[in-house]
């Protein structure tokens, strides 16, 4: 277990958190405005943005989620390498 994480780790997680929040807001908005194409376009944009961000984070800091939502390292089952969510 590393004793400290680089600043980049926190910056990327902050970006991920911001994108996730936008996706939550847009999901709730689109539930009541299904035909708002502008919002749907924005939702898809942020959704692909999140996928890229997740890939970037997981490439250097290990899986974010479990049960197939994230790839594991090929050489080792490494889901418990990084700090736990409450330790971040």
């Amino acid at each position: 277990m590393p004793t400290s994480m680089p600043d980049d780790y926190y910056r990327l997680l902050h970006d991920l958190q911001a994108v996730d929040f936008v996706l939550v807001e847009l999901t709730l908005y689109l539930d009541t405005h299904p035909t708002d194409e502008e919002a749907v376009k924005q939702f898809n944009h942020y959704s692909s943005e999140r996928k890229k961000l997740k890939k970037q984070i997981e490439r250097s800091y290990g899986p974010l989620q479990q049960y197939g939502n994230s790839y594991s390292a090929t050489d080792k089952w490494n889901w418990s390498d990084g700090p736990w969510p409450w330790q971040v």
Partner: protein
Amino acid sequence: MKRMKEYTPYHSPNDPCPPIGKKYYSTPPQLYIPFQPANLPQYSPKEALAKGTLWPAFYDYYDNPYRQRGN
């Protein structure tokens, strides 16, 4: 300091306790927007995360009205 609406409850002469004075209540923006229109201006993701909403029209932060006014 956030502008909040207020009222003064009736204080009966038979009431042993001191009068409460002014009481404040909040009327957030969603009370005045029945159906959210499309293409409202938005915050940036980071600012939206900090402020708790994607749309400035619905921004409603808490401000303790009893602290500054001392009563």
